[in-house]
């Protein structure tokens, strides 16, 4: 079925994003993997909109909102990364453990 190939693509992209979040040491790398996962979710929204509920455009509206929230997340995340770099002279997240006890 044609819909399944889009879902499979989204699942593969999401799995790659999860792998990046789990294994990257660099905070910017983690943010980039997060963007991959957002994109996988968006592909799913648009796919379901086209194949399951083609009467309206609810899925595409949702995907647009996800894009906006992802942009806001990237802005705040990179501000935090710059702050970390200023205070610790490095942004490897395995060194930044002050919130862990």
């Amino acid at each position: 079925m044609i819909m399944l190939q889009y879902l499979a693509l989204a699942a593969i992209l999401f799995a790659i994003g999860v792998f990046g979040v789990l294994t990257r040491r660099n905070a910017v790398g983690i943010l980039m993997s997060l963007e991959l996962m957002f994109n996988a979710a968006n592909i799913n929204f648009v796919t379901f909109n086209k194949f399951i509920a083609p009467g309206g455009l609810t899925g595409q509206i949702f995907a647009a909102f996800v894009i906006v929230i992802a942009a806001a997340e990237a802005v705040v995340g990179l501000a935090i990364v710059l702050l970390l770099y200023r205070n610790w002279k490095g942004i490897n997240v395995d060194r930044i453990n002050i919130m862990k006890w």
Partner: protein
Amino acid sequence: MQTDTVQLVFYLFSFLIIISAIYVVTLKNIFHSAIFLVLTLFGVAGIYILLHAEFLAAVQVLIYVGAVSVLMIFAIMLTTRLASREIKQSNEQVMAGIFICAGFLLASLGSFANTVWRVVDKPLPENNTLTLGQLLMNEYVLPFEVVSIVLLAALIGAIVLARKEGA
């Protein structure tokens, strides 16, 4: 014939997306992975076009390729030392990460195959972008306004976070 072309374009785009996404998460040089992130996002825009979401494809190119990835590259440039290649970029959890991702992938693909999808064979509304704009201004006007406040809060939050103390 026409479906064959669509299939071919789909396989090309998904090949591009998967290969460059793997590069994004595995490359040693973080700057190169940002470049491959741009390639991945372009591929996703192509998938949107295949799914008749032309407006979303344009938004994807404008916001992701134009703004977010430039922001990423900007942050990489500002945190200079990590652009060098001798720093180790992945932690000790690579094997565990591979197992978790493979498990997730198998579980989700299996559930896709076992679900009975009620596929509706109907075209999307003509004039996609027009309908999207009307929906945003009528039915979804409250989420639209809320998301604008979220963006404003993110803007102010980023400025407050990144500003020097006392400046």
